């Protein structure tokens, strides 16, 4: 059983919803990422989503774009992200780690080489924003060989008859994008989310996590009541980018927010 599957089993057994923070690897500074990851776990994160910085993050709103830029200013790469994960794994063998990013850095490394290096570093899942099911044949074959889950996005614009095409290729869980737009955009409509999550669940036994518009403890609690888990991204990255504060207190603020969200879910 994969680390992600094991985690969902224990969450279900405990009647608990997953809280999944998203931070960009190397943001705000590469030397604090590993300790930030450990602190997020200590504050109640069930899994970690680590953004791989890319020069052209087309699906991100301004907040996460800036996170990518801060990391790129330190020349953080896919290779250094994997090194960061390997370092985290030295003292945490259990928390699932999901890489989230864009196709080109992986394409450049080569899908086979990436899959092997990612598995070795301790990666459990992969979300590639610009690899829809129509384009994943090659990467899925490589991920299967090394037991990494490929996690797909489903969006409000996904027609119901397309959902099986996605769920049939997916493993680990389904990531439901709660709104039309980029990360960090407008408020989410919990009722609409609930309806779509139900629709997805009628097609698959995979758990469904929801992300893209969760801002605080209240919106996280509302969404968690209709899904298996919540992903919190822009709200954390915004705190990590607060230039009025030291790097240490930015990390402290992000961890505190995650703790608040955890206690509300």
């Amino acid at each position, binding site marked *: 059983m994969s680390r992600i599957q094991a985690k969902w089993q224990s969450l279900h057994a405990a009647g608990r919803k997953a809280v999944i923070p998203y931070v960009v690897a190397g943001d705000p500074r590469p030397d604090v990422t590993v300790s930030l990851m450990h602190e997020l776990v200590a504050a109640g994160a069930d899994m970690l989503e680590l953004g791989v910085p890319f020069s052209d993050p*087309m699906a991100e*709103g301004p907040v996460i774009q800036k996170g990518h830029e801060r990391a790129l200013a330190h020349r953080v790469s896919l290779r250094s992200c994997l090194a960061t994960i390997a370092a985290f794994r030295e003292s945490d063998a259990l928390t699932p780690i999901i890489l989230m990013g864009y196709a*080109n850095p992986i*394409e*450049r490394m080569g899908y086979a080489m990436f899959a092997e290096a990612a598995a070795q570093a301790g990666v459990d899942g992969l979300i590639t924003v*610009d690899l*829809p099911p129509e*384009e994943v044949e090659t990467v899925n074959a490589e991920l299967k060989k090394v037991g990494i889950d490929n996690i797909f996005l489903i969006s409000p614009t996904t027609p119901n008859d397309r959902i099986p095409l996605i769920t049939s290729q997916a493993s680990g869980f389904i990531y439901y994008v709660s709104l039309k737009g980029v990360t960090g955009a407008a408020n989410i409509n919990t009722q609409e989310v609930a309806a779509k999550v139900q629709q997805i669940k009628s097609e698959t036994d995979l758990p469904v996590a929801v992300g893209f518009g969760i801002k605080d403890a209240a919106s996280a609690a509302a969404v968690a009541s209709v899904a298996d888990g919540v992903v919190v991204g822009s709200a954390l990255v915004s705190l990590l980018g607060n230039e009025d504060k030291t790097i240490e207190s930015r990390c402290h603020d992000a961890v505190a927010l995650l703790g608040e969200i955890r206690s509300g879910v």
Partner: protein
Amino acid sequence: MNKPIDPSIYAQVPDAKGRFGPYGGKFVSETLMSALADLERVYSQLKDDPDFQREFDSYLAHFVGRPSPLYEAERWSDQIGGARIYFKREDLNHTGAHKVNNTVGQALLAKFMGKKRVIAETGAGQHGVASATIAARLGMECHVFMGEEDVRRQALNVYRMRLLGANVISVTSGSRTLKDAMNEAMRDWVTNVDDTFYIIGTVAGPHPYPMLVRDFQSVIGREARVQCLNQIGRLPDALVACVGGGSNAIGLFHPFLEDESVEIYGVEAGGHGVETNEHAAPLTAGTPGVLHGNRTYLMQDEDGQIMHTHSVSAGLDYPGVGPEHAWLKDVGRVNYVTANDDEALQAFHTVTRTEGIMPALETSHALAYAAKLAATMTPEQTIVVNLSGRGDKDIFTVAEVDGADIFGEK
């Protein structure tokens, strides 16, 4: 050059997945997949629909002013003393460039789909102006994304767009040029996908854009082929066009791909020189990767990050290129070469003075290469250059490079 044995392969791309060999495809976020499927469905329905074609042709004739002439550049050819050079005069189109052929086609698709809001990205501003123009004509709301750096160097076109009623959004992320304008347009499209049609300005982006932009621009090559047969009595020996994303080039080339006697040259922006890394020549010096919805040649570093580009011409300042060009390079049908900033500027001045035709700086790259090529050929041979646009928009850039003081301020 090792040409493929079977020339019919050119009519068989893209395949059903939008692939040109390994290039092309649909590398976009899930939110856009159903919009692309809608567009594909509508386009395949309208492509061969006589009423749609009649409306498109009527706009091309009466609004754009087609067919554009094929013109012999006599004095310039005499001066070079080699092959005779002909210009396909896309600069004479309404709004001054080839871009309008495509914006009319896509805006008619938008109209058919009932979309009242159109968005576009632009570099030189020609595609933005052409989009704003047809949006005004069809009564649509138009938003144009343009890199901050391009807003500065193409101020004339920015004001033209505003006069036409478009909202011009200055993009301040990344390198503040065409690539970032395209990122921002994609972000807008994801957010407003229900009521918005994205008019992409070149043969890039996800399938079906590279195919439909090619189809709309192929009117250039179809006309040129007939004009060559009528005016010269035979096919040309060579075609030359500049390549930014590659829409004016594919438009000229596509109807000639099966004519094996015709040598074809696509000219990328060499910037300060391809050896300097300050250029915009992905086919010449790049490697395959995925950006803006398709797999193609890109300017990228060893980590897969997209590199900053440089060209004196805003319309060529792009790190990618249409996927069909990537494939045509690999199969060996088209030769991709470069012209540097200074060569393009020199061609700009020469053609302006010798022919009384002021070309766009993008076009000037094609002219610079055509001059070199012509010199290696004989007066019995002919070259057709796609005169993709006129140069009025570039006079501030040229004045800046030349140190001229147009407003008498110094």
